[in-house]
């Protein structure tokens, strides 16, 4: 019977899986949840695509049209917003899970694909941030681009390429839109496909060797579990989209920066670090984080089996990762909630 129902999904999944693959604590369903976000993003993005115009004079009005006049337009935009931020958070959590279980062992290629995906998600989020062309997005992009310029050698070039000049302007809007709506979705799809394909090539989820007797057929259990996670994620996204409104402030005014002007939340941690020290926050810290993540599979010489949470002989890398993650979260929290006018420390209430 299984033979007759063979379809594309069977190629993505192994025939038989470990029983522990299905256990909720193994993966926490983060990968599938992220995949669902990506699907929602592509669908809602394609719809928004039909109504948006990347031009300074009308971009803001098109967003007003989408949110207030278009039937279900507000829901659609909120869904895109919630899914975009959800994807970023889920991707970061997924990365955390893979690191803390040491699942990158002997899968360094897929680990790299994952990092590329994370970068792509960040850039996609950043480029999408500008499109409403309101006060907050305009100045956040301005801050973000100048943060990039702190990086020696390549930084000013990247910033210039992204801005299409020295200022956030017409060119920046066009470039953001082109990247956001064509280049990045394509790259995201390609790398997601590679990411999934590598899991299959590497023999399913990373796990300690197991008795053949503990294996289950993938169908229907794995499919059902994945579907359940996907449906739950979708339900959560729609519920959040009903409650959370995607922010829309006043039209962008290049002459009047809000005080303080903050980068998008995922870069506020870097902004906070740069406010302490430009060299450390703008160059050293991003470099250390980047290199640490990039070369983790090669530095990790522990002998424990992959797929186990908090393996004893991996306390060193785990501790380093947790420290980095917590410090980044702390920097984001301080920058986001504790910084007031002129970047002064203040209480959030």
């Amino acid at each position, binding site marked *: 019977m299984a033979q007759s129902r063979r379809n594309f999904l069977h190629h993505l999944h192994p025939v038989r899986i470990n029983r522990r693959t*299905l256990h909720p604590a193994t993966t926490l369903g983060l990968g599938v949840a992220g995949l669902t976000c990506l699907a929602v993003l592509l669908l809602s993005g394609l719809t928004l695509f039909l109504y948006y115009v990347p031009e300074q004079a009308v971009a803001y009005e*098109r967003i*007003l049209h989408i949110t*207030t006049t278009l039937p279900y337009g*507000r829901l659609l935009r909120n869904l895109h917003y919630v899914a975009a931020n959800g994807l970023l958070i889920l991707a970061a959590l997924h990365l955390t899970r893979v690191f803390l279980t040491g699942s990158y062992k002997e899968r360094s290629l897929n680990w790299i694909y994952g990092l590329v995906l994370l970068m792509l998600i960040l850039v996609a989020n950043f480029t999408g941030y500008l499109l409403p062309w309101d006060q907050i997005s305009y100045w956040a992009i301005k801050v973000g681009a100048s943060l990039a310029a702190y990086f020696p050698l390549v930084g000013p070039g990247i910033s210039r390429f992204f801005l299409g000049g020295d200022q956030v302007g017409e060119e920046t809007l066009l470039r953001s839109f082109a990247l956001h709506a064509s280049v990045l979705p394509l790259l995201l799809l390609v790398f997601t496909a590679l990411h999934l394909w590598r899991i299959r090539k590497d023999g399913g989820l990373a796990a300690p060797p197991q008795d053949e007797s*503990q294996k289950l057929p993938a169908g229907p259990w794995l499919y059902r579990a994945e579907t*359940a996670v996907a449906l*739950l994620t979708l339900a959560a996204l729609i*519920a959040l989209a009903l409650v959370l409104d995607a922010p829309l402030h006043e039209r962008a*005014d290049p002459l009047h920066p809000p005080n303080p002007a903050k980068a998008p939340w995922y870069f506020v941690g870097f902004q906070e670090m740069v406010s302490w020290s430009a060299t450390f926050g703008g160059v050293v810290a991003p470099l250390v984080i980047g290199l640490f993540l990039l070369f983790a599979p090669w530095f990790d010489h522990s002998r424990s089996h992959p797929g186990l949470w908090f393996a004893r002989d991996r306390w060193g890398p785990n501790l380093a990762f947790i420290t980095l993650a917590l410090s980044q979260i702390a920097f984001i929290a301080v920058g986001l909630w504790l910084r007031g006018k002129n970047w002064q420390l203040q209480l959030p209430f």
Partner: protein
Amino acid sequence: MKTPPDIPRWINPLLVLAALALLTVVVAALALERRGGHHPDRQIADITVNLAGSTVREHCTTCHPGGALHPAHDQAGNDSARKHPDIAPHSIDTLGCTGCHLGEGMAMDQVLSHGLPGGLGARQVLKGKQLQASCFTCHPVAPLAGAEKAWQGYQLFLSRACDSCHHIAGLQQGGRFGPDLSTIGSHLSLERIIEAIREPDADPVNTIMPRYPLSRGQTEKIAYFLKSRVAEPKFATPMQIQAGLVSLPPWQQVLAEEIPAEATPLARNRCLACHQFGETDGRIAPDLTSIGALRSADYLKTYLAEPNRLVPGSTMPRVQFEEAQSKELLGFLAAQKGELAHQPDPKQLYMHLCQRCHAAAGDGRGLIQPNLANFPRAFAGNAEFFRSVPDPRIVESVRKGVAGTSMPPYEYLLKPQAIEAVIDLIYNAFVGVARDDKSTFAPLPEKPESLLSQDETDELFDRRCSACHGRAGTGRGPRHLEFLPRPRNLTNTPYFAALPNGRIARAIYDGVPGTGMASFRNELGAQELWSLVYRVREFSQTSNMDGKR
């Protein structure tokens, strides 16, 4: 025999649960968002107009049929209140709504379409009498029916001499002292403009814009005019603006017949918008009634040309005068000797000459104190200061004035006995200690043979002094706003030129009572103290150093 692993039992219930949850949420979303109603079952009224060459699309008439009030907001309940006033020859069909009323025409949500509250509010809806803020975006600035207040606002703008600090495109000349207001209407809401005029120091806190004595109504009028200064005036092409074809009527023409017959050059040059002269009082700047007696012609000439040279930090803008104009003005000022009654009562003298800055309560917070570069000395509650200053110095301050500040030399106006009487009055009424009650100070450390090197002195200054006095010594360090009197501007050349080294050293060594300047006696050695004195000399570029480094 292999034992088959258990089938996970939780998967099926979870799948069912997830499907149910999704179903619920989708149904809720479809229902809520359908009724979430920004446009309940109404056809969207989409109008597109051509406003000065740019296409404007808006949905305003969906909720305001025919330009009328939304039926739900029409509390009067009568049809007349719902109708848009007759504005012929304007018509909604050709001009649309947002050209004059602003707001966001594409939004159908009340909050968004009326312009978001808070923030800059550039697009906040103008309604009722506020609408005249839009008239002069198209019409030339001239008396216009319906825009009376905006026109009066322009007259006020000129008569209060706002243009001597702020530039506005279309005026023949304008100051560059304050921000350019040529396009302010495109950036700020009426409310924000009014707030900026009424409470200039609300944001930014270190502004030097004075708080003008304007009524709420007058401020509104000026704001109506300013709101019409937009980046893209609708019926003037950029080329017309560039060529100066779009001009504002100059000051003289506006109030030509209203200048009184005994018009003084002060009134004609709008000095009295800020200064006092006799009965007329701008309530911003010092009294000019006796200025001819107090200040030399040279002083006045230099001050008019470069206010900051004589009183560093002065908020007086540099006014552009033609040669004849300035000659007439200076001649007029020099002729004003002021009139004082013979042997007037010291109380009258104080109220006449001192209280404008030092306040009737003697606390230094006089009427024009916020606009002065230096805080007037407080008398009340400042006994420690007066005990620390030898009597001759106080007499000298009144007689010779204080160089580098607005304190004029009164010896040219008052007889020595009158000055003595005023000082006695100040001691009795405010200071609260006897004139001869002076504290004694430990002698200053001797100036050592060698001082610290330049780098060491700079480092010492940055560490000890720059938080208040600033790294450049301008008195605007990061903490300068915490203190009133503000930290001394160390680059005030005229002030420090008149100061002997000993007094600078004394101020550092023992502090200055009644100010934020603390005593550094226990923290500085002789070498450090005297190095800082010389650092101050360098900042102020005063050369009466009696020794080289």
